[in-house]
């Protein structure tokens, strides 16, 4: 065996940080988010606001199966927005800030792998999203009499897949944006572009056919429509699942290749 220094063989066993370390990192990132009060407004307060603005009208319009327009259109849209906002705008700007201040560079010279930092960020973001979705759901149920999705399991599944897709898009933003400011700018442009094509500003009827079809496949539109279907208890269309799934794979791959520590 080749030895380098007394007691340090060149074949030192590869030791990667274990589950305890992952836990510590996750808790650390959670504390960072919890102590950044302003950062909590977007995922928690914004969706509630959107809900309040739309709920009273939509709550009275029955659609089908005892579900109102609030259940079938507003809630899916609000949930999708929460996920997209935290995934595409918030998370990348946090990471870009870490990069600019040298935190990522500092971590890069420890045994913490890039994957650890990214996964911790996503996990924390997902928790934020969950809190935002839960708060909006509670408000919708208690104040506006919203009904749960007819197929709750499918709704949850779609929400999870949506989260993965939005965070994958966010990871691409984090990987490619040169500065924290540009991360926010790129994130917002993407958020509004995907949102506009996906029906965030009203139906897609006004869009040219090509754009409307594209919007339906892109993650925002696919998520909102798929959620809508679960509220009605209809089966989710494969096109939506394929759209979301391929976003996860493609964007996840691009982010993994281009992610930089500094």
């Amino acid at each position: 065996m080749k030895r380098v220094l007394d007691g340090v063989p060149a074949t030192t066993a590869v030791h990667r940080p274990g589950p305890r370390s992952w836990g510590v990192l996750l808790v650390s990132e959670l504390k960072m988010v919890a102590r950044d009060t302003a950062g909590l407004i977007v995922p928690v307060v914004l969706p509630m606001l959107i809900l309040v603005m739309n709920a009273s009208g939509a709550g009275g319009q029955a659609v089908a199966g005892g579900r109102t327009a609030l259940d079938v259109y507003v809630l899916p849209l609000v949930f999708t927005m929460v996920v997209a906002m935290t995934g595409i705008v918030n998370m990348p700007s946090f990471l870009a800030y870490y990069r600019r201040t040298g935190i990522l560079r500092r971590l890069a010279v420890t045994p913490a792998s890039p994957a650890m930092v990214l996964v911790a960020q996503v996990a924390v973001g997902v928790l934020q999203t969950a809190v935002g979705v839960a708060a909006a759901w509670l408000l919708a149920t208690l104040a506006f009499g919203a009904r749960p999705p007819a197929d709750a399991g499918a709704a949850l599944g779609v929400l999870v897949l949506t989260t993965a897709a939005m965070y994958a898009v966010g990871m691409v933003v984090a990987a490619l944006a040169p500065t924290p400011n540009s991360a926010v700018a790129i994130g917002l442009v993407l958020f509004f572009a995907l949102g506009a094509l996906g029906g965030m500003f009203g139906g897609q009827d006004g869009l040219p056919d090509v754009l409307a079809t594209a919007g339906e496949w892109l993650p925002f539109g696919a998520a909102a429509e798929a959620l809508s279907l679960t509220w009605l208890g209809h089966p989710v269309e494969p096109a939506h699942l394929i759209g979301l799934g391929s976003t996860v794979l493609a964007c996840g791959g691009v982010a993994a290749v281009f992610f930089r520590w500094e």
Partner: protein
Amino acid sequence: MPETVSSLAVEADGLHKRYGATIAVDGISLSVPAGEIFGLLGRNGAGKTTTVELIAGLGRPDRGTVRVLGLDPWRDRVRLRQLLGVQLQDAQLHAALTVVELVRLYRSFYRSPRETDELIESVGLAGSRHVRFDKLSGGEQQRLSIALALAGRPRVVILDELTTGLDPEARRQMWSTLESLRESGVTVLLVSHAMEEVERLCDRVALLDAGKVVALDSPAGLVRRAGFAQRVRFRAAEPVPGGLLERLDEVDRVRSDGGEVVVEGHGDLLQAVSVALVRAGVVATGTRVERATLDDAFLALTGRPLDREEAGR
């Protein structure tokens, strides 16, 4: 396979690194034996930080090779990170986390880390355990960053601008920390602007200028390259007659600096100069003798003084 024992902790051979049109590192070679405190000294832009980044595996050299403890810092980084501690210049930490939270986070990455309390006490931060990083003073942030570099019981430590921003007491404390590291056989690569620190701590120093090593020697060896051993400064009430001092064997050079006459030379320089002045009837006041320093060596070797004020790449 035969057991080949190498005692080199860091080996760099012909490193080149270019950023756009700027050549940051231009053929740097170093070898640092295990247990040595090795200094990298140079002006801003001399290539110190880039060299350190290549050694730490934060970048890949365009040409040349680096080995740290026999490992390639880029290819074997997973293995090396357990053995290497790095304090980076200007790197921030999670702003909203406290001292103890950050120490716990960083030590969790290593296989056999030092104890949390021991680390915090070793840099004198016991009183600030529960203070957030962004509420610490610059010196405290610096000390924390050093504690984190030592968290994993590294065999090799890279410290970039160790005592920049520290008050004199904290600086002395860091120096004694470093000396105890040396006693435990840890190899230290110290990037510095502070001549005093380098002269006091380093076994050997590489002097960098424009991406190249212009000299590599012990601090005392470098000082000898200043070209003179000592310097006498004084103010003269009337002009010193031309050639009076230059004629002396002990004198290498005479120049004026502001209102002062500066005589560089060797041997019993002060005695020789004083006698010559008295004989010529020149009254000298404010006479001082200075030993040649690394500053003088730097000036002699690169033709320009070392800029101590700011730190930079």
